[in-house]
């Protein structure tokens, strides 16, 4: 047992700066206790705590939402159709965009902004003389945000560009909360992921304008039920257009290009 002096002189006590409570030197009140003591000390003569309650309504993503609206206005003003492509890692976003630039991109000028946690591999895969590409490496951030898009777009030569593809970081959760100012949100679900993905990640599917069921060429080999996957997508995302496709076999790709054409009416 430590010897505790029972006759400690009063001047060895200090006043706690936050709560005003007396304490021995070196004694730190825990934050909740300090708060409680401070509230008690602040109590009025009737004992009612002088705690003020302030009601407000601050959107937590206000900054992003404002920047997203600014991006949207900019894209609209330029007559630029913008698509935000979101999926789990490896669902086939870059592969689809490569083919799209090689085919659709020959008639209609396209540009790409691609986000990854690390490496510029996807940016290099997408590099084409006829299509400007900007790579964003987020350095660990699990989603793109509107500010990143605004900066990346500044570095692109958008002269004559009609369609801007934004390949988001492979992630089905975080991108759901971040509006980039896109016109169309495209969610990709690949046949290697299981039919129940939409039921497991509802917010992102609920925010989709278009769902692409990708890699349908391997569905049979994997015992993946296209019918069940499509039914699940329709139940969770009845607002979305649904196109099953395979970039490898080409199935559904023409329908994807038709969809893109509806976004870029001839002027």
């Amino acid at each position, binding site marked *: 047992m430590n010897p505790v002096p029972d006759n400690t002189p009063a001047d060895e006590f200090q006043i706690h700066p936050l709560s005003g409570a007396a304490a021995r030197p070196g004694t730190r009140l825990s934050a909740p206790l*300090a*708060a409680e003591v401070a509230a008690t000390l602040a109590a009025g003569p009737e004992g009612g705590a*002088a705690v003020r309650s302030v009601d407000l*309504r*601050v959107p937590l993503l206000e900054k992003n939402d404002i920047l997203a609206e600014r991006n949207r206005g900019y894209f609209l003003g330029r007559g630029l159709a913008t698509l935000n492509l979101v999926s789990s890692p490896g669902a086939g976003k870059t592969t689809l965009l490569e083919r799209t630039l090689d085919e659709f991109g020959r008639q209609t000028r396209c540009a790409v902004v691609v986000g990854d946690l690390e490496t510029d591999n996807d940016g290099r895969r997408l590099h084409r003389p006829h299509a400007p590409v900007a790579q964003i490496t987020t350095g660990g951030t699990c989603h793109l945000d509107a500010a990143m898009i605004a900066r990346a777009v500044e570095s692109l030569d958008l002269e004559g560009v009609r369609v801007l593809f934004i390949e988001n970081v492979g992630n089905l959760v975080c991108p759901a909360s971040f509006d980039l100012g896109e016109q169309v949100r495209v969610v990709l679900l690949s046949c290697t992921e299981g039919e129940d993905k939409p039921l497991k990640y*509802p917010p992102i599917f609920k925010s989709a304008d278009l769902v692409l069921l990708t890699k349908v060429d391997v569905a049979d080999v994997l015992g993946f039920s296209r019918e069940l996957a499509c039914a699940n997508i329709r139940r969770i995302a009845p*607002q979305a257009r649904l196109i099953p496709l395979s970039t490898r076999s080409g199935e559904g790709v023409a329908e994807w290009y038709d969809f893109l054409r509806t976004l870029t009416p001839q002027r």
Partner: protein
Amino acid sequence: MHEVGIMESAIDSVLHQARAHGARQVHRIVLRIGALSGVEPESLRFAFDVVTNGTLAAGAVLEIESVPARALCAACAEEFSVESGFIYTCPRCGALSGDIRQGRELELTRIEMS
């Protein structure tokens, strides 16, 4: 895990308000989080302790009010509240709805301080 960034933005607003009111301590913070916001309340609570550490909001109570989704039925124009789950079936006519009218909220709504 984008909850840390979201919590940082919430606490920035809280501390701004606390300073504006000359408060010395924040006791309670109330957030409204929609069922479709894409944000996990548990991750928010974890981020809260980290982000408030060493600030006027350290030790405050974090209250999270969940906001259920509401949807509008395109077939019969009924607006309905979704009790649970993510398949929005109109209680009046049984049609599926994807027209979301509420549930994406992500807001700071009350601060108690002294």
